């Protein structure tokens, strides 16, 4: 069930890395931002749950576009360490802003789903999680469609392959970058907005999400969308198995152990085509 949201996080991150060559440390904060927007809209203004979901994602897209425009626009072409440091700075500022505004207390969000679980044979699943699962599937499909079947998606793929040539062919690189960052951020915010009502929203929730997104991306190979999708589901499965068979305390370590194993045997990740060894 978590696999879908993991995949959303991973796809967002891998898109941003692949197209913009930026390691996005604010990714986890966008995830937290989505959850907090749900909290604000549902619990404080009392909006409808589904309307709030759409709005939260839209706000995530807007925040992502703003971040790209203010911070990264001028640094296009700067080396990867520089942008990484800028993103770390933005991450610290954003996380503490969240803590300032919503305080350190964990916030729970009401969801409209019945509390009785859905029972299929021997398996019982909460309705909220079923909903999350289907929405993530729809979003993943939509992202694929956007990238493979639209003009913007074509521009994105072109930029991914060769930025300079794409620019020569008349692709507006700036627009593509902003769109990419906004899309990635929107996906992260969607993951947060979906999981917020299942768990709770708290300021440092983004950290774990970000480290997991990194793990997923490494697993699948940086810049590979199919890899990130598969990586998300593999990580979620591995975590559940690890929690069940080893120890629940090490649940969050499973992903990193998986990375280490993969780096030993196949340092290019499961799906990457490109050479990544220096």
């Amino acid at each position, binding site marked *: 069930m978590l696999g879908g949201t993991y995949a959303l996080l991973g796809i967002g991150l891998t898109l941003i*890395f692949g197209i913009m060559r930026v*390691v996005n440390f604010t990714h986890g904060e966008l995830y937290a931002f989505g959850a907090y927007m749900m909290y604000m809209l549902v619990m404080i203004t009392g909006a409808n749950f589904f309307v709030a979901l759409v709005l939260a994602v839209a706000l995530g897209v807007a925040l992502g576009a703003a971040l790209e425009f203010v*911070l990264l626009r*001028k640094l296009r072409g*700067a080396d*990867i*360490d*520089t942008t*990484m*440091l*800028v993103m*770390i*700075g*933005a*991450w*610290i*500022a*954003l*996380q*503490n*802003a969240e*803590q*300032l505004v919503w305080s350190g207390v964990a916030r729970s969000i009401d969801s409209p789903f019945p509390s009785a679980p859905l029972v299929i044979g021997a398996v019982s699943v909460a309705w909220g999680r079923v909903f999350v699962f289907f929405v993530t599937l729809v979003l993943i499909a939509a992202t694929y469609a956007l990238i493979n079947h639209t003009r913007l998606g074509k521009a994105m793929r072109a930029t991914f392959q060769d930025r300079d040539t794409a620019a020569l062919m008349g692709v507006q690189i700036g627009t593509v970058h902003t769109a990419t960052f906004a899309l990635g951020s929107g996906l992260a915010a969607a993951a947060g907005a979906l999981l917020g009502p299942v768990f709770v929203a708290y300021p440092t929730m983004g*950290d774990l999400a970000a*480290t997991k997104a*990194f*793990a997923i*991306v*490494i697993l699948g190979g*940086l810049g590979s969308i199919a890899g990130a999708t598969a990586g998300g589901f593999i990580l979620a499965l591995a975590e559940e198995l690890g929690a069940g068979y080893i*120890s629940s*305390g*090490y649940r*969050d*370590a499973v*992903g*990193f*152990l998986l*990375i*280490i194993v993969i*780096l*030993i045997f196949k*340092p290019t990740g499961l799906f990457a085509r490109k050479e*990544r*060894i*220096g």
Partner: protein
Amino acid sequence: MRKILTALWVLFLFSLPLWMGNQYLLHVLIVTGIFIVAAISLNLLLGYAGQLSLGHVAFFGIGAYASALVSLGFSVHLTPATVLNIEPKPVWCGILAAVLASGICGWFIGRLSFKVRGAYFVIVSIGFAEVARLVAVNWVELTQGPMALNNIPPLTLWLPGLGEHIFWKKPENYWLVLSSAVVSYVIVRRLVRSRAGRAMIALRENEPLATSVGIDVTRYLVLATVVSAAMAGVAGALYAHYIRIVDPDVFLFIYTVTMVIMVVTGGKGTLAGPVVGGLIFGLLPESLRALAIKPEVQWIVYGVLMVLVVYFLPEGIVPAVQQWWQRRKGAVARIAKVAP
């Protein structure tokens, strides 16, 4: 001239506790000094070998835990039947253990992760620190988990003229940390000016070229990681015996970020960089606290400052000052030429 200035500066730093009565400021300086040692070690890897390690805090934390555990003594079940039992050892043994433990981890991580470069290496190093933290939280038998290791003894050392001496007070710890910082500065200086250091710089600048002239890239990268990790381990051990409590929070990502900021703002790949950056970003949170309003605002300012520094001084403070100094000297020389 330069040598005299450096000597005076060091002398000034050493004499500080003699005339400065403010114990709190001294404490801040000690902690800053410990982080400067860690930043110097990171600079070797980031500035000279050109590898951004965002898991550096792992070596720091492993050093802190190793030193604390050896000096406290511990027993741990390796398998349900065999128990490894270590009696409490003197603290200097602990610090040696910290060097060894961190160095070995550095070797292991270096061997493993230099299969990849750039962003991959960064993410792997973050993952390593995260795993180290989770082990510290969950291996309760060894590390006490979140209950933390308490009552870590301070360093006891035989000093000429003083006999057995226990480092209880702040001035003594200040001198200890300052000496360690000077020693690590000298080690890095010797290293980067040696053959190995030139090899590292060569492969930072152009790895294929360095390989083609016969530099064994992996070997030098691993060497840099081991030295850097061992040094960070010493910093961790100093921290453990000064603060005298170690909990899994020493592995928090924010400490790595602090070290990276110190190195980058100071100027990566310059010897003085981590010292200058360390002083600024070690003392800045405290001065912000004096002004400040709320800890969150303090950190927001910190993050924003970091973005601004990267924007305006991408090379760091030390190179910027050096360039300004060069230009000024040039200008003065031109004026001197014109004047007569």
